[in-house]
């Protein structure tokens, strides 16, 4: 009688090694540093943390926070509209240059933000092609809020389109055609059929876009000029405090930034849970 194959012990070892590695890696590069920030922020108590935020003058932190929120409030909707429009264009229309557009959408995440920042300065700076034209009309882009918005939008372009495009391809055109035979005009079809069908992918893309915009440093630091109380975003504030040896302020600012991102991610997981329970 031949013995039945005994389940090897190796898979169990592999399983534990795999767990150890992923958890250890996440801890080493994500959890421990973030935890340390929380610890250092409140090392001397809550009041001390508040005080250290106000070191550079009480308004600086608040201004940076509001500017970051303002930039996100403009850049995220712009990229949402662009992302949905480009995804629909790529999924539903055949046109020359479609492949080029498809490749170009990914460019901003492939290129270093510093390069993007320098490119924007060249184009939108006072001596740039578009910048000089705008400057003649009294509109300043570089070293000003519009520049920060453009830089933030630039670096976060692909997220919505990349999240939505596969879903558009998967659902196909039949529902949209059915809507047309039932009398729906293109805009009604978009509003009542297409957008509801992609809503969770869209939420995912918007979340990633928001997180990226909140955290952008490189491109923004070049185009903003980092002027305190004028063009200093929250990431720049943190960098600035750190460079000026106000570690307490840097850590507190970093914590706020991390909490904002966590809130965005929390909203996403809420949306995901809803998606699972939705029919």
């Amino acid at each position: 009688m031949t013995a039945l194959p005994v389940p090897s012990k190796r898979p169990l070892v592999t399983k534990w090694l795999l767990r150890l590695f992923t958890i250890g890696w996440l801890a080493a590069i994500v959890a421990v540093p973030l935890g340390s920030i929380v610890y250092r922020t409140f090392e001397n108590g809550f009041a001390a943390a508040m005080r250290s935020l106000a070191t550079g003058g009480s308004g600086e932190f608040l201004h940076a926070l509001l500017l970051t929120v303002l930039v996100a409030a403009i850049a995220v909707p712009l990229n949402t509209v662009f992302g949905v429009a480009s995804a629909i264009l790529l999924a539903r229309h055949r046109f020359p240059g479609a492949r080029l557009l498809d490749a170009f959408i990914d460019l901003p995440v492939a290129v270093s933000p510093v390069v993007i920042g320098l490119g924007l300065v060249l184009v939108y700076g006072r001596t740039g092609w578009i910048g000089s034209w705008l400057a003649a009309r009294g509109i300043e882009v570089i070293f000003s809020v519009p520049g920060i918005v453009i830089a933030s939008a630039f670096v976060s372009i692909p997220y919505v389109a990349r999240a939505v495009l596969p879903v558009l391809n998967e659902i196909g055109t039949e529902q949209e055609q059915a809507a047309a035979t039932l009398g729906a005009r293109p805009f009604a079809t978009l509003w009542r059929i297409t957008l509801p069908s992609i809503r969770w992918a869209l939420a995912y893309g918007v979340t990633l876009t928001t997180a990226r915009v909140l955290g952008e440093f490189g491109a923004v630091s070049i185009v903003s000029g980092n002027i305190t109380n004028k063009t200093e975003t929250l990431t720049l504030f943190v960098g600035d405090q750190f460079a000026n040896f106000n570690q307490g302020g840097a850590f507190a600012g970093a914590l706020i930034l991390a909490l904002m991102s966590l809130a965005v991610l929390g909203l996403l997981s809420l949306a995901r849970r809803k998606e699972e329970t939705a029919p």
Partner: protein
Amino acid sequence: MTIEIRNVSKSFGTAVALQSVDLDVPEGSLTALLGPSGGGKSTLLRVIAGLETPDEGRVVIAGQDVTALAPQDRGIGFCFQHYAPFRHMSVYDNVAFGLKVRRRPKPEVQARVRELLELVRLEDFADRFPAQLSGGQRQRMALARALAVEPKVLLLDEPFGALDAQVRKELRAWLRRLHDEVHITTVLVTHDQEEAMDVADTLAVINHGRLEQVGSPSDLYDRPANDFVLTFVGPATTIGGRYVRPHDIGLTRVDAGVVSAGRHRATVARVANLGFEVRVELTLEDGAATWAQLDRGTARGLGLAEGDEVYLAPLGDAPPAAVATR
């Protein structure tokens, strides 16, 4: 309302889908576009709906040339092969969709949707979502959705193609009754000749983008215009290079001593009892295979078994002679 199709041609790249098709669909009829897969019948339906633009020709619905009109403006109801349910909407909202985009007052929408859900027997499913329905229920929902906007014509693409055999037969009978009730000019696409003959009053056979023949089920069956229609509509086999219906083949035992003209000698290869029908597979003297369809009584009378020698001859009363296409 009538549908007139005039000289419609359509190609996709180098593939020709329709070649100069002319077809009249009379008011209130239930017409089936019948043909093999890839023959162009679905394309013709989509051209009528405005989902495809013909390269040439015109489509006239209820006397109005709609060739240049968008699907939204043609007054059609369309059911897709896979029903294309709006997955994020309840059954109620699916059916109400066409009325809502027309901005009809809410009480009217409610009344109309309730009436339609009763018609398709889904009144208890109004709050369900398409994913919670069976195939047959989804099909009926799609029909109610298409009928809600009171279309002039109803277009159905392979309406029963994705259903299992039992549900398919039930829905077929139900659709026929519905048509007799609602009396809406209906065109349906199918590759199943039995389904087409069962449900439709007019059949249009389409193959390789051409209209082969138009007529009633018995026209096509008894007077096929050509060999394609003969072989596609109903069973067919060959004896001596001629097509013949297997139930129009008379068998006599060789040892019975009956002599008839035009007879062929053959050997019984197999006898299959299919209930009322008995299928006799035969090998002719030249080695060619054919088969005959007998009823149970006749087969019992002959008492055929494998290896028996028989004479066979096409029965005289229904030779499928070619008649001219309309």
